[in-house]
């Protein structure tokens, strides 16, 4: 019997060595360890053996079973590994085929830029204050120190709203026609008056950001548009100076454009600020060495600013003998044009997906 078991073991192990695929592994298991295998025959024949022989043969058969199972396990692992290796070797894809995409949403580039600006301003303590897009001449001009017929009005060509019935000039409200705001600055008056109303004797300090769409009567070309966003910053308090204005703008520019960018303040004129300045930042595209974006000048004109004019403070309910303040304004679309080299301002309201998808 022992011989028979040896023979069974030997035959089984021999046949196992030539097995190379999972199906053959399973077939081998059925043949050599299955119910009708020779080994199982030995187990089922145990009953016929004498009491003495039974444990000996039983033990021997069990040893063969364990041996065969171990061999099977080992072989099975080898075969699996071989199969995997083969499949890994054969299973290739063209990784250069395009990926499957999906339709996704995006914010309009102007919204993205407005957010960048407003986020920085928020961290600097300037909170968003919004106001209407259609305004009166009073709020858009007069209270901001542009009297009727003032030459500075030439700087801001204006869309007027037609009177009803039409007069052809929109002038039937006298010197206070309705118009499309030419800047977000009417919000300065709205804000100051709102804050001052809370405590007219001692109005609270103000630090706000005024974002919004503005309108100018201009031909629509690659460089000029009839509508554009503007963000203004306004700070009013009892202890605010031109030096603070320079400091605030330097902080903002560092955050917005570049850590080490140099700034320069040029004297300028806006009716609602005095002194007024235009701010140039060293070109962040070329680092001031000269490039197409800065037209080789090394400087980019990025914002206008100044100390709030005494008349404007007064019109807002803040006594210019006690309070001072500064304001500055900039254009998110212009910033994008510089940063992303957008060559045509008409792209912004053209809403061409081929443009929008690039942001």
């Amino acid at each position, binding site marked *: 019997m022992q011989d028979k078991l040896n023979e069974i073991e030997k035959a089984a192990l021999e046949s196992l060595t030539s097995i190379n695929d999972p199906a053959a592994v399973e077939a081998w298991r059925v043949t050599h360890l299955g119910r009708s295998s020779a080994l199982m025959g030995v187990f089922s024949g145990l009953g016929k053996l004498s009491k003495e022989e039974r444990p000996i043969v039983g033990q021997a058969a069990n040893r063969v079973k364990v041996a065969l199972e171990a061999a099977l396990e080992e072989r099975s692992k080898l075969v699996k590994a071989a199969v995997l290796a083969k499949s890994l070797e054969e299973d290739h894809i063209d990784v250069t085929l395009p990926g499957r*995409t999906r339709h996704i*949403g995006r914010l309009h580039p102007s919204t993205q830029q407005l957010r960048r600006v407003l986020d920085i301003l928020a961290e600097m303590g300037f909170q968003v204050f919004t106001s209407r897009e259609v305004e009166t001449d009073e709020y858009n001009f007069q209270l901001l120190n542009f009297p009727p017929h003032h*030459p500075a009005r030439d700087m801001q060509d204006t*869309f007027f709203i037609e009177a009803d019935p039409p007069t052809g000039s929109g002038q039937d409200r006298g010197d206070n026609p309705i118009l499309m705001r030419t800047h977000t600055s009417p919000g300065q008056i709205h804000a100051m008056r709102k804050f001052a109303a809370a405590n007219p004797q001692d109005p609270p300090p103000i630090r706000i950001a005024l974002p919004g769409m503005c309108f100018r009567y201009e031909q629509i070309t690659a460089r000029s548009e009839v*509508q554009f966003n503007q963000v203004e910053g306004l700070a009013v308090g009892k202890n605010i100076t*031109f030096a603070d204005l320079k400091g605030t703008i330097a902080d903002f520019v560092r955050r917005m454009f570049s850590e080490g960018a140099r700034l320069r*303040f040029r*004297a300028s004129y806006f009716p609602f600020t005095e002194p007024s*300045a235009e701010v140039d930042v060293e070109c962040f595209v070329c680092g001031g060495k000269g490039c197409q974006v800065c037209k080789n000048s090394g400087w980019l004109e990025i914002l206008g600013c100044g100390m709030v004019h005494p008349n404007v403070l007064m019109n807002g309910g803040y006594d210019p003998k006690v309070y001072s303040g500064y304001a500055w304004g900039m254009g998110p679309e212009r910033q994008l044009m510089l940063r992303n080299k957008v060559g045509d301002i008409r792209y912004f309201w053209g809403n061409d*997906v081929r443009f929008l998808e690039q942001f």
Partner: protein
Amino acid sequence: MKIPLSWLKDFIDLDGLPVEDIARKLTLAGMEVDEILYVGLPKPVYKEGEKHEFKTDGIGWDKEKLVVAEIREVKAHPNADKLTLLDLYDGQQDQIVLTGAPNIFHLKGAGKLEKPIKVAYAKEGATLYDGHAEGQVLMTLKRAKIRGVDSYSMTCSEKELGITDESDGIIILDDDAPVGMPLADYMGDAVLDISILPNMARNASVIGIARELAAMLGRELKKSSGQLSVTSNQLSVTSGQSVKELVEIEITDPELNPRFVVGLIRNVEIKPSPYQIQRRLKLAGIRPINNIVDATNYAMLEIGEPLHAFDYDVLKQRAGKKKIKIITRAAKDGEKLTTLDGNTRTLTSMNVLVCDEKGPLSLAGVMGGSESEVYDASKEVLDAVGIETKPDEKLPHGKASVRGTSTVNILLEGAAWNFINIRRTAKQHNLPSEASFRFSRGVHPAMAEGGVSLGLKYMAEWAGGAVAPGLVDAYPLPPKDAVAEITVNDVKRWLGIELTLERISELLSRLEFKCEITPTGHALRITAPSHRMDIGEGLVGVADVLEEIARSYGYDNIPTTTMADALPPQVGNPVHEWEEHLRDLLVAVGLQEVVSYRMTSVEKESRITQYDEYVRLANPIAPEKSVLRRSLIASVLDSLEKNIRYSEAFSFFEIGPVFEPIKNELPNEPRKLAIAITGLREATAWDVQDSPTLDFFDLKGRIELMLSGLRLTNISYTATDSYSSLHPGKAAEVKVNGQVIGAFGELHPLAKEQYELGDSPVLVAEFDLNVMRSIDPTYGIKTIPETPSMYEDIAIIVDESVQAETVEALIRQTGGRSVTDIRLFDLYRDEKIGAGKKSLAYSLTYQAEDKTMTDAEAAAIRNKIVKRLEKEVGAKLRS
């Protein structure tokens, strides 16, 4: 304003300063230099792409190769009729030069000249502009044989030297030009093109810019503006009757005309101005006319006071035997005047006139009248004071009366006018001129006397004649001196710098402010110089002066500080924040934001909406931008239509105001959200070709996600056929707590026909953000159960007319808190279940609150639900 550097140097020593440094100084002080045009002075050379702060143009003149020379003899060319040969001396040797210049041609064959003609001579190898090329093309002068004569050099025209764009002859220099001197030294120049800010009208003059430069550089002016104001006593030749005996002035409204000054010069000879004067005028952008007109323009450019020259004899003739009386007054509505450009203009009471007793003579401060203009019989050209003419433009010709002889006696006007009237007159008659540019920004009345005197001085120099003694000066309304008192603390409080009164005084004196420390010693009393109209009174005056202190001190020298002022209480902007959150939600569900023009046309909007009333623009830029939008969907559909060819799917949204008109008042600006989606639901790829198109439920799903993101609950969708732009069977109103917040659905086929939007259905939505925002959100969340849930599907058959919402509501009510989720996973119709019927299959989630639910408990709930559905909507359970 274009300022030739040579002219500037008449007033300030600029030695040792590169042109670009001068331009930078001016730019930083508020006089932005847009371009530097080199006309002879060495032009800096930049490599391609190399940094240069200013835009530059023009050429420098080689000192060796371009010199002053004199023509001594004019001969005929042996082989060419149209050419002449010039015998010329360049200071070193004789040269023979060929020319076809028309302004030399009349001397052809004249032989030796009695008086040599001074010219600009270019030697072989000189770099110049090609005089025959279109536009400005650089060339180098090379040796050539022309009709058998050796040609190696030339006499230059203005075009060749870059002085003007066009020219029709060679330059004939003034007689005193030194032969042999390099041309660059004699008349090399650079022109600064400077933008004049509205508050810097005082700087629209050579002396204005020189004065600023002197202050910024800390240099002295060669002649102060005070010395420049020559009085008539100082003029070299005065003779005859004084002006006062001949002319009187009546100003009817000093508010319109605070000052009017006239002077007289007799026996002038009208002829061209000296070449150097013409050259400067040309570089400044003014076309030379004759010595008289040029003198008015030259004096205006130099000190900023516009002048007007009348033909004295015309005025005398009009006055008959009476004394000439100049009257200034507002025009009468409908009154007419023929201006010197030949146009007869109908006037309004806004216009101001200079008249005599017979009627109007000129449109004050804007343009002269044709009858009394300075007349040059030899040229028959018109006084063009202040008209900007292009070189190729023929001068207008509109002579009202033909006079036989040239003007010999000139009455010269210098005045001050109300800037508002001048501004409106120039706009009304579309007459922008050098004079109206200055007057409409404010010219100080103090300048009138100096202006007239200077004009007379130049006329006497260039046209001979004798100046009549004295001036007639009507000055009924001298402006108050602009005085401001300023303290050390004002400067500190506003500018953030600490300056002593002495230092402030020094900074302001450079700009010719008069400064004196007040008796108490605490303040500086500052009086603005008499050329300035921009310094106000009181606090405004203080601010105006502070700006001047800052400019004089240099903005760059002011420190950069961190604000020390208290941070105000931080208050949020909930409206803005809510809208930004909404944008994020819409982007998260796959929508692309667009931003459209607020301006549109009724035609464009009427494709989808019908409104009678719009906010209309009084001055639209174009018909398609003539009203403010009322429909945000219309804006988004316009964007969709423009893009429809460029993508397979679109999901657009826009957030912004629409404009609801209120008669003669500010319109309402309610904020809206509009969505439009169309095209393929899935993005196609190389192995994914077929995707269903987006439909109603794609849009509804996005809306559901948006509303859940806004944490709005108690939402219902009601079928609606009351929106004309929406498909009556595929449209719904969205309500929150029973309040309508918006509507959406498939675009009505008839509305869709109005657009080119492809074949796929277009789904649109519009929400009223003001209403949406007013609803309180629900912020609470459900706790996540710790006990397991049970899932079960039930399918029922109901009539088509039974709405899904009803079935779901019944399940929810019946299941109560034990049914935590109900999801429709199949909608099915087929013959087996019968016509007019549909099968709805729901996946239900059962959940006991604090224990594991048993099968029996679940079955009991389920039976209750089925019974309820059978009873209420006649449902049959599908096996």
